[in-house]
């Protein structure tokens, strides 16, 4: 059971309530909702917001592949997974990503949630442009994509 979406912040909103409803619709007992938000300091610079860019099709494809891997590699067969990531500008403290998972047992839920966010960081084509209090902004350097995994 998988739900994925890129939320264009100019047209739509990212809401934890939608993730909660999705998870509740599954019959599993252990659930975790991870919320990624814009933090105030990065590398000693005062951040006021981040513009996220994404290659939507590749990002959704990577989400699907990560989900499949949780079956094949982690052997977590029964699960519900909800992944939404925003695109566009978000201010300090606002949500950029929601990953909600539900499994039969808590051990699996923690492993599943952690695996998904770490893999997204490594291989989903999403970019951040940080905006600072001094009105400057810059694209974060990031890491070259790991080709063989896409």
């Amino acid at each position, binding site marked *: 059971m998988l739900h994925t979406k890129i939320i264009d912040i100019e047209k739509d909103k990212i809401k934890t309530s939608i993730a909660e409803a999705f998870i509740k619709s599954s019959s599993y007992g252990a659930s975790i909702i991870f919320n990624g938000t814009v933090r105030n300091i990065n590398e000693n610079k005062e951040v006021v917001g981040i513009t996220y860019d994404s290659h939507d099709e590749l990002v959704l*494809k990577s989400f699907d592949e990560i989900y499949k891997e949780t079956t094949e590699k982690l052997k977590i067969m029964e699960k519900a997974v909800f992944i939404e990531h925003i695109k566009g500008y978000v201010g300090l403290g606002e949500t950029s990503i929601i990953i909600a998972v539900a499994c039969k047992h808590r051990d699996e839920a923690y492993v599943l949630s952690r695996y998904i966010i770490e893999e997204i960081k490594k291989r989903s084509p999403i970019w951040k442009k940080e905006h600072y209090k001094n009105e400057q902004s810059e694209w974060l350097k990031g890491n070259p994509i790991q080709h063989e995994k896409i």
Partner: protein
Amino acid sequence: MKIKLELFGASRDFSNKEFLEFNIKQKMEIKDFRKEVINYLDKNFKGNENFIKIVKNSVFCSEDNNIINDDFKIIKDQKIGIIPPIGGG
């Protein structure tokens, strides 16, 4: 052949538009197309080292949304996406 290079992330600074257009005279592999892009940036941004570094560290993506290798052959007009180093989530 006309190649429309779609820009993402840091490569968006290469243009005010969402893409760059290249006219290439002959079939070429991605590794040669990468050199074309570097030459374009070298010429238009006075050898901006940061821009060139971005291209060197990027991969490319085909119209059907697959990451393509350096030996992928460009044989017709097409859109190609440039995928700079990533850092989202």
